[in-house]
C-alpha cells in the first residue's frame, strides 16, 4: 500500500514534469478556456442579475471543456515508445499507476481553472473574490470527479480508433450529475446565498466516492488485458 502510494507520486511527478516541459495540454487547455470565455461575452447579452443566475453553469462549462483536453492526454502520453508496457510490467500495482496519472491531471486542470477564474470574473464584471475559498473547495471536489473518470476513460480509449473524439462522447454524459451539483453550488456561492448548498455538495461528494472506488477497483481489468 505504502509502496503503491509512493509509486503513484513518482508517476504524478513524471507526468507533471513532462507536461511542464512541453506544455502541450496546458497551452491548448488554457487558450481554449480563454476563447470560450470570450465567446460567452458575445453569446449572452444579459443584465447583471441575470448573469449571476447562470454564472456557475457557465464557469463549469468552461472547466469541463478544458478538462477534456487535459485528461485526453493522460494515457496517450504513454503510447509513443510503448512506455505503458514498461509501467505495467513494473512492480507497482495498476491502481497506483492510475492514481498517479489522475493526480497529475487533477493538478493540471486545477491550474487551468485557477487561471480562468479571474479572467471569467474580469470579462463579465463578476464578483467572486468574496467566495474564493468555498469556491476553491467546490472546484477541488468536482475537478477530482472530472479527472478520475476522465483518466479512467483515457485508459479505456487508449487503444480505440478516433479516441480524441470518443472520450468526450463517453465522458460528458457520465459527468452530468457531478456538473449539475457543481454548477448549482458555484452559482449559489458567487451570488452569496450559501445557505442551501449542502444537498448539492452531497451529490458531488457521492460522485467522487463512487467513481474513485469503482475506477481504482476496475483499473486492473482495463490495463492488464
Amino acid at each position, binding site marked *: 500500500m505504502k509502496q503503491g502510494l509512493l509509486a503513484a507520486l513518482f508517476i504524478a511527478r513524471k507526468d507533471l514534469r513532462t507536461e511542464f516541459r512541453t506544455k502541450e495540454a496546458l497551452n491548448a487547455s488554457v487558450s481554449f478556456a480563454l476563447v470560450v470565455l470570450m465567446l460567452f461575452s458575445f453569446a449572452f447579452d444579459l443584465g447583471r442579475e441575470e448573469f449571476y443566475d447562470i454564472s456557475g453553469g457557465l464557469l463549469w462549462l468552461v472547466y469541463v471543456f478544458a478538462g477534456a483536453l487535459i485528461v485526453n492526454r493522460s494515457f496517450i502520453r504513454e503510447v509513443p515508445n510503448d512506455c505503458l508496457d514498461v509501467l505495467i510490467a513494473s512492480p507497482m500495482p495498476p491502481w497506483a499507476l492510475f492514481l498517479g496519472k489522475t493526480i497529475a491531471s487533477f493538478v493540471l486542470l486545477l491550474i487551468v481553472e485557477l487561471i480562468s477564474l479571474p479572467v471569467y470574473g474580469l470579462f463579465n464584471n463578476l464578483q467572486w473574490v468574496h467566495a474564493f475559498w468555498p469556491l476553491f473547495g467546490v472546484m477541488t471536489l468536482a475537478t477530482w470527479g472530472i479527472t478520475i*473518470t476522465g483518466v*479512467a476513460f483515457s485508459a*479505456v*480509449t487508449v*487503444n*480505440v*480508433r*478516433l*479516441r480524441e473524439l*470518443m472520450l468526450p*462522447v*463517453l465522458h460528458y*454524459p*457520465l459527468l*452530468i*450529475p*457531478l456538473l*449539475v*451539483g457543481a454548477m*448549482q453550488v458555484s452559482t449559489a456561492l458567487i451570488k452569496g446565498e450559501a445557505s442551501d448548498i449542502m*444537498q*448539492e455538495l452531497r*451529490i458531488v461528494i*457521492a*460522485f467522487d466516492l*463512487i*467513481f474513485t472506488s*469503482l475506477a481504482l477497483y*476496475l483499473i486492473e*481489468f*482495463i490495463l492488464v*488485458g
Partner: protein
Amino acid sequence: MRDKAIYILGILGTLLMIWNLHTIFVVLPGEAAQGQIGKMLFIHVPAAITAYSYYAVAVVCSIAFLVTKNFKYDSVAVSSIEVAQVFTLVNLVTGSLWGHVIWGIWWTWDLRLTSQFMCFMLYLGYLLMRPAIAEATQRATMSAILAIFAAADIPLVVMAIRLHNVRTQHPAPVLETGGVDATWWPPLATGYFVLMLIAAALVLVRLRQETVRREIDSLRRELHAM
C-alpha cells in the same frame, strides 16, 4: 434451435400484441381525465419497463463477463443494451407525443424524461465505442467497464435532477399510486409481456450476429498469423 426460438417468440409476441391492441382500442373506453390519449400508457410504460429490464440484464452480464471472461455474457450485454436503447427511444417518442397533447409541450427537463434521456446517451456512447476497438477481448472488457460506470451513474443522475428541478409535470408513476382503473391492468401487463417477448426475439437475433462477428475477428487473426 435458436432460429426456432426466435420465430416462436416473434409469432407469439405478434399474436398477443394484436389481441392486446384490440383490447386497448376497441374494448376499453377512454380514460376519464385524458380521453383517448391516455391509452398511450399501454405502450409508453411497458416500453420503459422493458428497457429498464434489459439494461439491468446488461449490467449483470457485464459484471459476469469481467468475472468469468466468457464471451456469452458480453454478447448478451451488448445485445440487451441495443434492444433496450430501441425501447428507450419508443418510450421517449410516445412520451413526447403524449406530452404534446396533455401539457402542450414536446419536452420538459423533468426528472423522468431527463434520466431516461441520460440512459439513452450513456449507452449510446457504449454502442458507439464498440466498433472502434479491434480486438475482441479488449472490446468486451472495455464495454463491460463502460456499462458498469453508466449503471453507477444513473442513481446519481436521478438524485441530481431531483434536487435541481422540483417543478414537474410528469405524473408520479401510475403503477405506484394505484391511479389506474382495474380494467386497465390486464392490457398493461400484457403490453409489458408482449414487449418483453419481442425484445427477447430481437436479443436472440442480435446475439447470433455477435457470435459471427467474433468468428470474423478470429479469422482475421488467423489470416494475419499465416
